[in-house]
């Protein structure tokens, strides 16, 4: 009996020690993933923020969410350099595909820090893989929707003028969206682009630019928003835009969130193509942690997340799904 007690006690101690050892090993191996959106000031990344942290909690890793408030290549470089300096275990970035960024990514890779991209890719940097939407397809869908709207209004034989709002000219995802857009309308509409507005990924600046342009050019027929920068305010906050749209202006764009749906409801926007930023955040953490822990890669260098579409037809349904952000 005494021996039995002794054996049981010894086994218990061994189990406790093993558990503690495993827990210590896990704690010691807690990974830190650096997540670098294009900017903190663009709310479109907040879905990714929440879901990346949620996934990190689930996986027992740390996420460091760092970016300049307003997009700038220099600001992103400083952040990436700080992550390299900190010795994070992996980095997920949404960047411009420019040589400086490519070089920074290559420095991280050279130091053994795996880097993947999300949202905006930098294929020339040597990143492991990219997570995002098919940006060409997103642009194509927006273009196709525009063709449908124009035809529905009987304007497809007319010469139309258009203005395009985009963020940074070097953002590869935006370039691909514009390509897709023009591919979709090619040969179907006589569309002349009068202006391309670059808002530098700044939400406030985007709203001002839209209002200013439409006050000066109320006769423009089409507005294509390559991203949803100005969609965070109520329609009443953009009176020129609202007036222009109600006067027959056609606006289509990319990015779906609650405030953008309200603009669709108010008739200011006619069609939206949405990207699943939440999945990008979650997948970014999940796939990178999986790589770090197991060495497995997704098997492709482009992990696509799906597109969603919003029009008057599915608006009410979407308003039930999306929640208000109230960030603006």
């Amino acid at each position: 009996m005494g021996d039995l007690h002794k054996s049981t006690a010894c086994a218990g101690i061994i189990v406790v020690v093993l558990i503690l050892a495993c827990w210590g090993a896990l704690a010691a191996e807690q990974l830190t993933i650096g997540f670098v959106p294009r900017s903190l000031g663009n709310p479109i990344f907040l879905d990714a923020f929440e879901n990346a942290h949620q996934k990190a909690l689930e996986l027992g890793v740390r996420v460091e969410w760092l970016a300049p408030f307003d997009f700038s290549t220099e600001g992103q470089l400083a952040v990436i350099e700080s992550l390299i300096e900190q010795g994070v275990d992996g980095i997920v970035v949404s960047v411009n595909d420019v040589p400086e960024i490519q070089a920074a990514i290559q420095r991280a890779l050279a130091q053994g820090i795996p880097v993947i991209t999300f949202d905006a890719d930098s294929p020339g940097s040597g990143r492991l893989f990219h997570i995002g939407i098919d940006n060409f397809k997103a642009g194509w869908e927006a273009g196709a929707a525009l063709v449908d709207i124009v035809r529905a209004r009987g304007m497809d034989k007319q010469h139309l003028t258009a203005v395009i709002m985009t963020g940074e000219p070097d953002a590869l995802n935006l370039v691909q969206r514009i390509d897709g857009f023009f591919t979709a309308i090619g040969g179907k509409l006589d569309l002349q682009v009068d202006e391309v507005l670059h808002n530098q990924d700044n939400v406030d600046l985007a709203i001002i630019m839209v209002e200013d342009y439409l006050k000066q050019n109320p006769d423009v027929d089409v507005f294509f928003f390559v991203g949803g920068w100005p969609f965070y305010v109520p329609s009443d906050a953009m009176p020129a835009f609202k007036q222009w749209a109600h006067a027959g202006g056609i606006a289509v764009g990319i990015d779906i969130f609650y405030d953008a749906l309200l603009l669709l409801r108010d008739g200011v926007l006619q069609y939206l193509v949405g990207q699943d930023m939440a999945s990008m955040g979650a997948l970014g953490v999940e796939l990178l942690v999986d790589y770090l822990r197991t060495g497995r890669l997704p098997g492709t260098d482009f992990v696509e997340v799906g597109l969603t579409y919003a029009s008057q037809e599915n608006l009410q349904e979407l308003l039930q799904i999306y929640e208000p952000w109230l960030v603006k």
Partner: protein
Amino acid sequence: MRLTKLARHVRSGIHSIRTRLILSYLAIALLPLAILGWLSVKVYLGSMTERVTDYSAEVVNRVAQDIDEYFRDIDFLLTRDPDFYIDQFIKLVQNNSVTNSRKYVFRIWEDFNNLRRVKPGLEDLAITFGDGRILSSYGFYYTDYVPQDSELKLVGPRVNRFGREVVTMVRPYTAEGGRDVWVSADINLERLASMANLKASPRGYVYIMDRDGQIVFSPHGHEVDNSEKVLINTVDSEVTGWKIVSVVYADEVEAELAYLKRLTYGGIILVLVGVGFLAAYLSHAISHPIRRLQEFARQATLDAAAEDLPVAGRDEIAQLSTDFRTMLARIKELMSENLKEQKLLRKLEIESLTNQIKPHFIYNTLDMIIGQLEKEQTEEAIYLIEALGNFFRLSLSQGREVVQVASEIEHVRNYLYIQQLRHGQGYQYHIQVQEAEVLDYLMPRLLLQPLVENAIFHGILPADRPGRVEVVVSRSHDGIVFTVADNGVGMEPGDVEQLNRILAGEAAAQENRPCFGLLNVQKRAQLIFGPSYGLTLDSEPGQGTRTILKIGFLDEQLALDTSESA
């Protein structure tokens, strides 16, 4: 030899009026300048040190004031009223949930970044949790630095996450649920540098030190330059507790002082050079005419032409030159006159001597001696020979022109004795000296004999009756008076007057009465003693004639000069 000559020349130069004037002017200019310069340097050094110290104090006070004001603003940001969004975010994080945190985190980022925009130097604002999570204006990440302080603290300088040198102001978050939460602000060192970019001197600087003596900011990195002597001024920052230290290099003050010294010395040298030139000009203006005058005087002693002296200007020296030229002309004139007078005097003396030693006087006297010897009147002959010998001896007087009155009296006495013997005791003579001391006085020789001779030959002998010649010597207040009186034939008043006019130079002597003897005596007396001396005659017909000779006193030197010139 050359050195000796040079030294002599230098000594001569130093003692010249010109050199003395220049040195005087320079001394007059240098003394006040030196005193003024010394006082200026002393006063300026004190003033400058005080000014630098005051300005340095002003600098550190200003820097401390700016820092206090800035950090008070930052602290105000950290201690503002509880923020709803921050409170909610803290609750979510402490519950380990970030789902639905987007609106809080976005607002906080936006708020923090707006504050960064409006507050220069504010590098970051952050909320730090006890587990190391940190929400800052750059995002949401982890930090190794978790504050443990329960009150306001300043940390750093340190390098922040993004490689910027910052000072962190941190204090506990005091809102509800703010346990183990701190709010902090990073202030970049550039901002501190700009606030401390005041300096009390060109090379001076301001550095900041914390309570522990560690350098918070210094333009020399994190070190203080201790290699040179410095003036330090310190003040404490009320909010941060830092020490604000102003450093002024002592050599800057000294350099400025050295500049002043150089300026003063330069000014003194400049003024001295100016004064030197002015002194040279003035001394030249003064000494040049004097030197010309000196040169002229030297030339004048060599009988150079006085009229060659140029006289320019109207000053005292020009006047002196004019007077000197006049004086020189007068001296020449006097010398010429003196020469003439000496020549005349010599001529008159020779004439007088010639008149005395007339051949017939000698022959007659010698005949008389022979007669006495033939009559074996040996004793009388001896007396006569002795008298004649004495007469000639005194006439010659060993070549001296000046003799004692006693000698002249003795000479006349011998003459009267000889003439008395020649003319057969036809007259008596009497010599009276009223004051014995007169005998020791000096006088020109051979003045009395012509008067006595006139009394005998023109007074006594023509009367053809026994006569008397009386010689009286007396002393007046301004000379010696010789009176030769006879009781002979006398002269008519007109003749006396005419004779006195001739003696006074108012009339010319007549051919029939040349008056050689009297004129000789008169001229010699007046040449030696002046026009107020000489002869006057007084006579009455049949009563006799009185001839009065008045001469002045001769002192030894004048007598010597007169003898030498003769």
